[in-house]
């Protein structure tokens, strides 16, 4: 067994997952929980993230083959592993995905005139890549068509999506009364690049021919929409002395609203069902990006069949065309049209939904907390002195996460246990089931040392016993400076 650190794993692993931050959700000692539910309890007077270090997260997942399945030094022939563990084991529902987020800055403060309001704003960049396994195309590439006469290879298996986007946001969290906290966040998206191919259809098929021995048929309705990507490709193609610098400048320029723009919002709430039981919910990234800058779209549409070159006498005796090959190629290209264009398009953001039910218990001064359990009694007269106005000692509950993906919604269900150890340490552990894993145990730790807040969270800890064999891994951490009361 070889020790490697998580960073190496995350860099080395290309596959990642579904953007579910089960551990962070409703872990409201961490200000970044506001990004997952703008209506979460916000027990802070103010907070400021350490620039570039306040929120870093990466998630990686594969529902099919793992790194260890293919690259373990086990003496099995690599081609055998590819054939048995990938080509013939995975389906078009299997997905590799990767997502990451880096918070550039974040600030939050409680309103002076209205202490029930907590305002927060900031900027973060995030990237996402998803590739569904193109099962039929993989088999076609691996075997070819000669041994698959009569088999129809489905071109709709070609589905992938990726983006890099910068988000400027401003949110308001408002305590309505003792039982209700609601929140909303407006978002301005600046797309650096995006590409997607989905909703494709068509097939390729080889059958016995009607005239000749074989007939190859292709029916295609494929499209790939890109924005921003071509600008980076052009810089790389130039391959000048300033390529690296040019790439960075282009990235910064497109990040800071020099690319394609969009709007969106998050909403959320927390509702106390009783003194110690509460439900929460949030809907995130309801929005769109309008792509009209550096757009390049590709499409292949049409149908054609081919039984090779054809000479029929006496019809071809007169004016015999000696350029039969080019004629055949031209015919096929005419029937299956490949085009590129720069038409603008709109991409909807991947809408996410969180919901939870939670029960607090343990030896805490519930009555006091009941009055302040929104955590918003911060006008210099906080009831708990130097305490953090946290309303629980222990908590258990369940969470639901859903996200809209290229092939329909995906869901994850989590059970969690949360515990506070004094005012320094809070801990949350989750058990999550989703398409990637049925044994996903996550752990999050939040430390508070004076005004300095540090959190670190990871998912699928059992997978870390052999991280290369894990179907899912995630890591997030960050530093904040915050004031719970009059710190």
């Amino acid at each position, binding site marked *: 067994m*070889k020790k490697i650190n998580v960073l190496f794993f995350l860099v080395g692993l290309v596959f990642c997952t579904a953007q579910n931050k089960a551990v962070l959700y409703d872990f409201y000692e961490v200000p970044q929980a506001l990004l997952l539910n703008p209506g979460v309890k916000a027990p802070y007077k103010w907070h400021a993230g350490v620039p570039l270090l306040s929120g870093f997260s990466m998630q990686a997942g594969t529902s099919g083959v793992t790194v260890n399945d293919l690259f373990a030094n086990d003496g099995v022939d690599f081609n055998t592993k590819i054939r048995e563990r990938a080509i013939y084991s995975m389906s078009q529902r299997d997905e590799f995905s990767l997502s990451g987020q880096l918070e550039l800055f974040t600030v939050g403060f409680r309103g002076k005139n209205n202490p029930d309001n907590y305002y927060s704003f900031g900027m973060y960049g995030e990237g996402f890549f998803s590739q569904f396994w193109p099962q039929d195309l993989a088999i076609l590439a691996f075997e070819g068509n000669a041994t698959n006469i009569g088999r129809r290879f489905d071109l709709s298996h070609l589905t992938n999506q990726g983006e890099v986007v910068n988000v400027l946001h401003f949110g308001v969290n408002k305590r309505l009364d003792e039982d209700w906290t609601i929140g909303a966040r407006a978002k301005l998206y600046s797309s650096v690049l995006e590409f997607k191919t989905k909703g494709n259809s068509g097939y390729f098929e080889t059958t016995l021919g009607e005239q000749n021995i074989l007939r190859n048929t292709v029916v295609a309705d494929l499209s790939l929409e890109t924005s921003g990507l071509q600008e980076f490709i052009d810089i790389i193609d130039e391959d000048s002395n300033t390529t690296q610098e040019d790439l960075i400048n282009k990235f910064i320029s497109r990040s800071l609203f020099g690319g394609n723009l969009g709007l969106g919002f998050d909403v959320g709430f927390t509702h106390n069902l009783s003194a110690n039981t509460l439900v929460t919910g949030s809907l995130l990234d309801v929005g769109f990006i309008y792509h009209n800058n550096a757009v390049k779209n590709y499409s292949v549409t049409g149908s054609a069949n081919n039984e090779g070159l054809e000479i029929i006498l*006496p019809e071809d005796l007169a004016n015999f065309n000696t350029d039969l090959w080019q004629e055949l190629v031209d015919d096929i290209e005419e029937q299956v049209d490949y085009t590129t264009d720069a038409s603008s398009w709109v991409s909807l953001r991947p809408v996410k939904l969180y919901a939870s039910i939670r029960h607090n218990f343990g030896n805490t001064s519930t009555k006091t907390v009941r009055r302040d359990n929104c955590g918003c009694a911060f006008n210099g007269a906080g009831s708990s002195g130097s305490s953090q106005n946290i309303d629980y000692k222990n908590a258990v509950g369940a969470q639901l996460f859903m996200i809209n993906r290229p092939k329909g919604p995906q869901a994850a269900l989590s059970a969690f246990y949360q515990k506070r150890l004094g005012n320094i340490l809070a801990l949350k552990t989750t058990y999550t089931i989703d398409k990637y894993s049925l044994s996903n145990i996550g752990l999050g730790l939040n430390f508070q040392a004076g005004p300095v807040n540090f959190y670190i969270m990871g998912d699928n800890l059992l997978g870390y016993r052999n991280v290369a064999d894990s179907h899912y891994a995630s890591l997030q951490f960050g530093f904040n400076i915050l004031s719970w009361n009059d710190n």
Partner: protein
Amino acid sequence: MKTILIFCCCLLLMVSCSEEQDFNQVDDLSLQPSLASSLLYFESNEDTMNAAGTGVFFSEVFTFEAFKEKFIADEVVEGTITYQIENTTSKSLGLLIEFLNEADVVLYQEPFAIEPQPTAALERQVNFGPNGESLEILRNTAKIRISATNEGDGSSQSTLTDPKLVFKSSATVVLNVE
């Protein structure tokens, strides 16, 4: 004690184990797909043969660059060409298939002597690669010449409906993609 606990927890998250991985295995990846397609269909009715009389009634050279496509020329390791011929005319016929390079030099030829009907359909397979003709033939083929000869007379007529010579062909190539 609490601090130690905290650091231990951190360490659990930050450090993980993995079986030994060998990413250089990707260099061993080798795909060997077999691609198949029809090549040429040739058909002539008996009236055309009679009109031309004894001797060559069709001979033409035409471009054929399928094997010169880069992904085939670079990766082909094996090939098979299948010919199928059916003659329902009353004549003995000759058919010659020649693969030519850009300079019209004959690289390979396949002659067929075809008996008049009634005769069984003829099928022949020719291998290219380790157990057959040189793969360089396929890689350099830019044109095909087909020559059809009437070995009989210019007046006989088969009693079958729509008598004709039908020539079919297909190719299967095995690529080695690394």
